[in-house]
């Protein structure tokens, strides 16, 4: 009963805090502070007040102590809501839909993400629609939906590959309702993309052709926000890049393409360099086989980074503990990535991809106080996340989490 009352007393979407400590001003000292903005600081002190980082310097004697501090991790491929009613089944092209409208701010996953060191996530639509809709970037903890929202309409998200067409029954011999969804093939998926983009471009000249979602597609074409497309396999990555290049050739605009779950990107680095495409990688798997029957090589992140491609790592909404974002830099390093590049791939690089790097992604004075406190060197298998601050508030308290 008392727990029920305690729950009731909390503000709307607050993630329960370990310590019950609601301060948002702290000093944190560590043997090493990895800022993701320059050299690590040995014997460093981070001071936080009113939810912002005030200084990062040499020093000790912080209220919170640990071996290492990194910026809060950023996952650009989270899916908090996977219920059937998060997908608009009456249409496959729904660019006007907004994840933020249907977000479950109370899902238990938030707490799990936050306590795993992930302080910012982009929540994308389920891949069952071709053009899913607008993603939102939010903090994993905080007082209210409003205060947690970092960026509304961050990217237009969709998918290429087998996911949007799988289990869609052929219309033949079945009633013509949307139990028989289209498309049913990869070709159909690509056709839906091309038609949506051409229609949006045509509506630019002839406004009477505008339909729901036209303006979102036009903004994506104009590069006002990135166009993020899930494409696991080589052929699907090629399709995504070719679509972008076709739009440019036609003079429709210059979309800022981000390929999500680009497991087989290692097969086409030239194409990605040529088209200035950024990639978000899915979680590593032990045998390399992953979504859409793609093969994800251990050295993918290292190889793409070496070619100058912007790389972010992600958990891709996986519920597998070993596929959490905090483990991914370790796997990327095993594939040959340097520590600095691996750290950047879960902090400042994803922040840049969605344009939130002025607020978060590195430890610099003036930025949001999103910090992860580690028991040992970050991303080592034996190191644990022992403390997390989101906007200066303790979500995981290192003074109690290690006892």
């Amino acid at each position, binding site marked *: 009963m008392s727990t029920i009352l305690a729950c009731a007393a909390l503000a709307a979407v607050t993630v329960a805090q370990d310590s019950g400590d609601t301060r948002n001003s702290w000093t944190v000292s560590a043997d090493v502070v990895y800022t993701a903005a320059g050299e690590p600081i040995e014997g460093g002190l981070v001071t936080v007040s009113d939810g912002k980082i005030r200084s990062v310097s040499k020093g000790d004697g912080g209220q919170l102590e640990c071996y290492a501090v990194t910026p809060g991790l950023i996952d650009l491929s989270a899916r908090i809501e996977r219920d059937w*009613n998060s997908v608009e089944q009456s249409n496959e092209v729904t660019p006007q839909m907004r994840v933020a409208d249907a977000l479950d701010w109370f899902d238990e996953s938030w707490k799990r993400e936050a306590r795993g060191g992930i302080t910012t996530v982009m929540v994308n639509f389920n891949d069952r629609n071709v053009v899913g809709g607008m993603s939102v970037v939010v903090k994993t903890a905080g007082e209210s939906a409003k205060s947690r929202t970092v960026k509304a309409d961050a990217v237009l998200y969709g998918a290429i590959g087998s996911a949007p067409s799988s289990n869609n029954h052929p219309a033949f011999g079945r009633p013509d309702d949307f139990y028989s969804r289209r498309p049913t093939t990869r070709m159909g998926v690509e056709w839906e993309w091309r038609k949506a983009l051409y229609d949006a471009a045509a509506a630019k000249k002839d406004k009477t052709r505008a339909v729901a979602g036209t303006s979102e597609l036009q903004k994506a074409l104009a590069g006002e926000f990135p166009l993020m497309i899930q494409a696991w396999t080589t052929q699907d990555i090629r399709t995504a890049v070719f679509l972008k290049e076709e739009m440019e050739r036609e003079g429709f605009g210059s979309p800022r393409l981000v390929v999500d779950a680009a497991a087989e990107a290692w097969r086409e680095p030239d194409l990605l360099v040529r088209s200035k495409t950024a990639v978000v990688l899915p979680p590593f798997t032990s045998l390399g086989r992953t979504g859409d029957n793609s093969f994800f090589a251990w050295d993918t992140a290292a190889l793409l980074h070496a070619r100058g491609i912007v790389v972010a790592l992600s958990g891709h909404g996986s519920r597998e503990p070993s596929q959490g974002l905090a483990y991914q830099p370790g796997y990327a390093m095993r594939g040959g990535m340097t520590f600095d590049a691996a750290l950047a791939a879960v902090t400042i690089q994803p922040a840049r991809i969605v344009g939130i790097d002025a607020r978060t992604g590195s430890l610099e004075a003036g930025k949001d106080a999103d910090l992860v406190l580690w028991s040992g060197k970050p991303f080592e298998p034996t190191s644990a996340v022992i403390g997390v601050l989101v906007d200066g508030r303790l979500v995981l308290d290192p003074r109690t989490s290690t006892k």
Partner: protein
Amino acid sequence: MLSILLCLGGLVPAMQTAPSQEHGASTTFAVRAKHLRLFGNEVVENGVLVVESGKVKYAGDAKRAGALGSDVLEHDGWLSAGLVACRSYAGARGELMEPKRSLTEDAHVADVVDRSHPDFERALRAGITTLVLTPWSSNVACGATAVVKTEGGEFVSREAHLLLGFGSGALRNNRYPTSYASAIGEIESRLARPEGVWQRVANGKLPVMLDAGTREEIQRAVQFASEHKLKGALNRAPLAGELAADVKRSGLAVIAGPFGPGTSERTLASIVALGKERVPLAFGADSPWTSDESLRLSAAMCVRAGLDAQTAWEALTSTAAQIAGAGERVGRLTPGADADFVLWSGDPLELSSRVQAVYIEGRRAFGGDE
């Protein structure tokens, strides 16, 4: 059940003598009651209610009532305002939703309700004199509610609220929309360029009733109402109290219940939290699927869980009337209000008390001649 009764109240009052005279024939009469339950928690011992032409002329201490005339009814029990149920499906079962279309904003319960249906008499017997008739909440825009008395053909209001479905019940996978985001987008686009009923909603003339089940749905509805400055109430919303501060800020009321022995402690704690935050609160009876007696039972269970008795009583009467948009006419025995009242065997907040007679607009509608 027994424990509820014992928690609620002192001793069960001894059997009262039922009024025996015929009243309502004359346009002016008075009722002298041993206990008169007024607004809030005020109970007047040896009170008097004076009725003139169907309206309350005076309610209060007998000493200050002046001369009562010849037509005086003695009631050796309790007298209170008639109860107001803020959600009922009386007289319209099977007619409350259009499954082929998700937006039926122009539908009116008032158009389909059968005013001679026995559902209304059942409500009357439970001491309910005013009902808010609501469409079924299985559409995105479900239609308009109506406010009626439990006897008499006239509507207090033919269009009291627009009911909007923020719950998963409004979504079906055989019609558009199937998703929360599309449903909200549809409502949003109608409010952006409002016409017809949406115009009345957008300019605050017509309150909304926002149906929501889970906590995330409630949060979404509250946020939507705040962003669009909608007036009205959350419908059902059992866990609204866990977001009590947000609900309070939004200005929305909550129409809770009906509750019964199976209602969880968490739900009841949520209602108590709403009461503490002073969010306007009322109950639904959901008749004919739930007994009309569940209205008083809902209030009683909340009191047992910690809601103060005054808030519970107001939720059954004056606050409910305000949420129904009929606060000037019903829910309080103030001069000029409709003379809708109930003669009880004991305190109406005690479940053991029986309804002995019900008057609507000064006319006896039930009981009184046993």
